[in-house]
Structure formats: C-alpha cells, structure tokens
C-alpha cells in the first residue's frame, strides 16, 4: 500500500488544520471536477420494471470487488436474491437499497402530463454526487470520488459510525447490521472496475430496453435537454440530478412529477459539503481566540484581586496605625483622668473615713 495524500496530510501538525480547511474550502467553491467524468441518463418513460438490471448487478457483485482494488474484505459478496429476479411482483411494494442489493426497481402509479394514469418504474442506486456528502462526512476518509465519476468506499479504515448514511440526501448507503465483526457500508460502486476503463456499469449494459444511457455527463445533459425539447409532452421539464445537491452522475428524465416517484424534491442546489465548511472554519478561530480571551480574563481577575488585596492591606494598615494612635492618645487621657479620679477617690475615702471616725467618737464618748 502506497502512502496516499491523505495519509501524508495525517502527519501534518494540528497547526496546519486552518490552512487545510482554507484550501479545501476554496477547492469546493471553484470545483470543476473532471469535466470528462461519466454519468448515466435514466429515461423512466421507457422502463417496464423487468428487473434485468437487478440481476446484472447481482451477477457483477456476487463474487467481485467492484471498487477496483483486489482485497478480500472489499469483495462485495452479494447474497442471492430473496425473491428470484423473474418474479416481478416485488416491484409493487416499496423496496430500497440494502446491504444485499445495490439497486432496486419499484413501481409507482401516477398521472402523466396528458392526465393519464400509468405505471412508472423507477430504478434507484447511488447517484454518485459530484461532491458527495458521504465522502465529506466520513471521519476516516473511507469514500473517494474517482476521476471517472464513481463514489467508492474502502472498508479498510471504516469504524462504522454510519455518519455517511445519515448525511446522504438520497437514503442510499446501507450497513451490514447483521455482522458482528466485519460490518461494512454497502452501496453501488458505479461498477468502478468497468467505468474506470470507459465501460458502462453492468446494469446499464444489461438493460434490454435502452432505459439507461452511459456517457460523459456533460453530453448526457445535452441529450436530456434534447429529449425534453423534442418530446415536450413526454417528460416533466426537469432533469433530476442536474442541480440537486450540486449535481449527480446519475441523471433522470420522468414522464410524471418526480415527487410521485419517491424522489426527494426538497434538496438544495449546492453541494452539501459546503454547509459543513462554514462550521469547520470556526475551529481554528476558536483555538486561536479562546486562550487569549480566557487567559486575558484570568489575568484581569488576578490583577483585580491583587489590587483589592493591596487596597485591603493598605486600609488595614491605615486603620491599625490610626487605631494605635487613637489608643495612645486615649490612653494618656484615660490615664491622667484615672489618676485624677483615683486621687479624688482617695481624698473622698479619707474624708469619709475621717467623718465616720468623727461620728463614731461622740457615740463612744456617750457610752
């Protein structure tokens, strides 16, 4: 295993985090991607729900790693289907991607532009976003966007926090909840082993009705616009995936409104990682600012305490010396007055004794 850019960056010290965020942020703002990356245009007006694509996906992924690298843990090892692929009744109940199936076709009933009630089948799989939320959300960088357009997953470092599943706006990634020791995130790989060689994914190649067209994304957008212009009554005038969450590799045309087919229609039109960018850019600011503010507050308080302590001490000293001085003065006054009083008391006592003696004498004499 060679050292990747990410691992190299891992060695960069924490002080570099700010610079990294800045560079990744600006990369996001003027992202041109790889203009020649591939995509798939799905024309839902043509799909009859035969599940051939599901079968092809299973055949491709049952014993192969479609993420390109040879690695045992990365073999998808999809299990055989619970319901055989020729049983079409399962399309009538709502199914979603799971750790056992990367793509499913469901039937919806809705009114088209002419007001006619009809069955519309919708194939879902990973949309392979231009700027994938799952990849930006992963705390070990387990996801990557290949230059051909695939969003692929590497289970090697995955800790299983499942933030990718929470972050995905399309409810696509799934988890092997039944595994106790080697659970992985499971999702469509855009048959990365094929698309990296310019070949269409297995499902696209297998489709007998030409529902899906594989090609360069920018050309597919032109094709989609052409289709809408030449058959304005056949399609809703919207290419789903052109602008949703900043654009996706998989693009959809539909004869009925997209919300009737279970598509999320409340999505923003910019890449979701941009939302996180703002929150993360605060990090270096807090790290730099808080020590100054809190340290400053601490020092201000200590200074205030020191001043208060000094003032208190000075006040006490002043009070003590004043008290001492006062006591001395008072002491002298008291002493002299006490002496005077003692003198007076003494005189009085003597006088009294003399008088009493005088009183007593006549009585004695009388006896």
């Amino acid at each position, binding site marked *: 295993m060679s050292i990747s850019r990410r691992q190299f960056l891992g060695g960069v010290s924490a002080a570099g985090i700010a610079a990294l965020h800045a560079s990744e942020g600006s990369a996001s703002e003027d992202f041109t991607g790889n203009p020649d990356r591939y995509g798939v245009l799905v024309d839902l007006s043509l799909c009859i729900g035969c599940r051939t694509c599901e079968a092809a996906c299973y055949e491709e992924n049952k014993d192969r790693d479609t993420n390109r690298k040879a690695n045992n843990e990365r073999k998808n090892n999809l299990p055989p289907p619970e319901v055989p692929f020729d049983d079409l009744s399962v399309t009538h109940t709502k199914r979603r991607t799971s750790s056992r199936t990367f793509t499913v076709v469901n039937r919806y009933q809705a009114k088209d532009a002419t007001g006619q009630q009809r069955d519309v089948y919708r194939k879902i799989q990973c949309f392979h976003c231009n700027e994938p939320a799952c990849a930006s959300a992963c705390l070990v960088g*387990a996801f990557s966007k290949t230059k051909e357009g695939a969003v692929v997953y590497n289970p090697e470092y995955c800790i299983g926090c*499942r933030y990718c599943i929470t972050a995905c706006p399309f409810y696509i990634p799934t988890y092997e909840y039944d595994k106790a020791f080697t659970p992985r995130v499971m999702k469509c790989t855009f048959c990365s082993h094929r698309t990296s060689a310019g070949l269409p994914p297995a499902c696209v190649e297998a489709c007998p009705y030409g529902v899906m067209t594989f090609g360069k994304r920018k050309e597919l957008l032109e094709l989609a616009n052409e289709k809408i212009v030449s058959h304005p009554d056949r399609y809703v005038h919207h290419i789903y995936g052109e602008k949703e969450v900043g654009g996706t590799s998989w693009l959809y045309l539909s004869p009925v409104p997209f919300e009737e087919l279970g598509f999320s229609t409340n999505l923003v039109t910019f890449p979701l990682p941009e939302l996180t960018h703002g929150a993360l850019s605060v990090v270096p600011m807090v790290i730099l600012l808080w020590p100054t503010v809190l340290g400053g507050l601490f020092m201000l308080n200590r200074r205030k305490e020191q001043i208060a302590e000094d003032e208190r001490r000075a006040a006490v000293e002043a009070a003590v010396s004043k008290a001492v001085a006062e006591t001395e003065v008072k002491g002298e006054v008291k002493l002299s007055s006490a002496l005077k009083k003692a003198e007076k008391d003494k005189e009085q006592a003597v006088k009294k004794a003399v008088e009493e003696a005088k009183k007593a004498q006549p009585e004695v004499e009388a006896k």
Partner: protein
Amino acid sequence: MSQAATVTIGEPQSRLVTPFNVVAALILAIGIPVIVIRFTMGLGACTNLSDTTAWGLWIGFDVLVGVALAAGGYVTSCAVYVFGMKAYHPIVRPAVLTGFLGYTLVAIGLLFDIGRPWRLPYPFVMSQGWTSVMFEVAACVGLYLTVLFLEFLPVPFEWLRWKKLRKFFIELTIPLTILGVILSTLHQSSLGALFIITPGKLHPLWYTPYLGILFFVSSIVAGLSMVIFESGLSHRVFSSRLDPDHPVDHDALTLGLTKAAALVLYAYFGMKVMALAHGNHWDLLNTGYGAWFLVELIGFVALPCTLFARAYRQRDARLARFTAGLTAIGIVLNRLNVSIIAFNWQLPAQERYVPHWMEIAVTITLITVGVLAFRWIVERMPVLAEHSDYKAGH
C-alpha cells in the same frame, strides 16, 4: 482538622442490600447480557437501526444528551478558575467528577454504537477525514476526556496521599481549564453541526445553520442545571460526606447558579427565536411538528427561564432545583428532537425509528453504571468535602 472530617472521608457505607442496590443489580442483570448480545451478534440483533435511520437512541441519548448534561465540568471550572468566582469552589469537584464520568459513559456508549469499536483510534492514527464534523467531534471528545481525567487527578492523589503528584496537577489547573473550555466549545457545537449537512432530512423548524451555536449555548444551560440539580441531590444523599467544619451556604450557591442559568437561558431563548425567524418557516408552526416545536420552545425554554428568574428573586432554592430538572428535560428533548424525533420526519410512520427495548436497556445500564461509579468515588475520595490535609490551600 476535626475528627469528624477524617472519619467521613475514606469509609464507604457498609450495608450492601439496600433498595437502591437491588434495583441497580436488577438493571445490570438485564443490561450486561444485552451488551454481550451486541458484541457477539451485531447491531442488528439488539437495535432497531436501519439503512434509513442509522442513528438511534445510543447516539441521540447516550452521546448527544450525555455530552450536553456533562457540561457542568467546563462551566463551573471556567467560572471559578478563569472568572475568579471563588465562592463556587465547593461545586467544582463534584461537577468535574460528573463531567469525567459522563464523558467516560459517552465513550463507552460510542463503543457500543459504532460497527467496529476496536477501530476507534483509526481516525487519529490511520486516516484523517479533515472535512468531517465527526472527525472534529471525535478529536475534541477524546482530548477533553483526557483533560477531565487530568483535572480530576488531584482527588485520587489526595485520597492516596501522593502529595507531590497532587501538587504538580494542581499547578496545571488554569491551562487545563482553558484547554477544557476550548475543547468543549468545539465539540459541544460540533454535535449540533453534525446535522448541518442534512437539510433535507431534519425538519425545517429544527434545521438551522445556527445548530452549532445553539448546541453550545444550550450546553452551558445544561451544565448549570445539572450542577444545581445534582448538587442538591448529593447534599441530601451524601450529607454525611459534607465537611462539618466548613459549612457551605449551599442555597446561596444554588441561587447564584440560578441567576446565571436564567440569563443564559434567556439568551438561548432569543437565539432559538432568531433561528426560527432566519428559517422563515412560521407557517409550519401551525402543524403537528410545529406544536411539538412550541412545546420545546415555550414549555422547556421560556417557562424555565421565567421560573429561574422567579426562584432567584424570591430566594427559593427549592424552585430553583425543580426548574433545573425541567431545563435538563428540555435539553434532553431538544437533542432527541434533532437526532431522532424531527429527523427523517418526511418518512411514512412505518419507516420511522422507534428504539428496541434492548437499546433502552443498554442506555439505562450505562446511566446506572455512572451513578454507581459516582457513589463509589464520593464515598471514598475528597469530592464533596475537602481533604483534611489541604484545607488551608484554597
């Protein structure tokens, strides 16, 4: 130093069979086998997690609520050591202990929830996802757990009478406190910011670009409330552990915290309303979710704010403690709303997540372990009262 103080520290209660212990044993008897099931049979065997809802009670409660309610550690140590509010020194130790135990439980809860827990160090040593809010959460929670551990170390060192080591860590108090505030600011807000990437999934009344700052400010409220609530409880349950020589006017401290809680809660209320105005989804207030949002905003933010103010003005410590409980419930509600109740709100009812009983059992087990650990430590170490050797030191 009196005889009474030396006796109370270091000698645990001797009675083993008490109603509390029986209930705790019962909880552990159910919880521990469930944990064994989790690790031998996988998440699927004991949770209702799905490909649609990948985060349930263990993230929503054990992590989001756990981290918020453990905020008392950084709030009180910042007030006492940085802002210099020394009168509140007696509440720092129990708050730091609660914080340390709280974060330890959060880490344990995470180990239960993540698919391959033995890979927990991978984000730091193997491969870094710099663009991930989760990476920031992991880094800050990991570091802050270490900081809390270091902040708490003087307590066991006093218990063990290792004076030199104690002195070393006491001298680290200020830098550790400031580091703790930085890390708390970052991860408390990041836990909210985790959901900034999900505008289509979280109900518009709760989804706001201000999620980060709302989580941070409400964590201050949560920390204050938990300190008011928990110290009231401790003083009743562990009254024999208090220092008879230095009676603290506990109600005065409680009312001081109450004043702070009222002010911060008032700011938080204003910010919630501001975020609501910024989202401009006033029409949604007239829906079921809107009513639920108003229950949280009026019943558990505005109401406790006025009650706190009333408690402070009337010097009513009992009302303050009641309000602290109400506020803490409000924070629990907010975290569960963001992570579970208002998340994936557009999905039909049968696809929504409801926790499995085993998930609830594990959560209750974790809380029980936390309470038992708190009791074990408080009954032995100088947490609620200062150690007889170091009384002059403050």
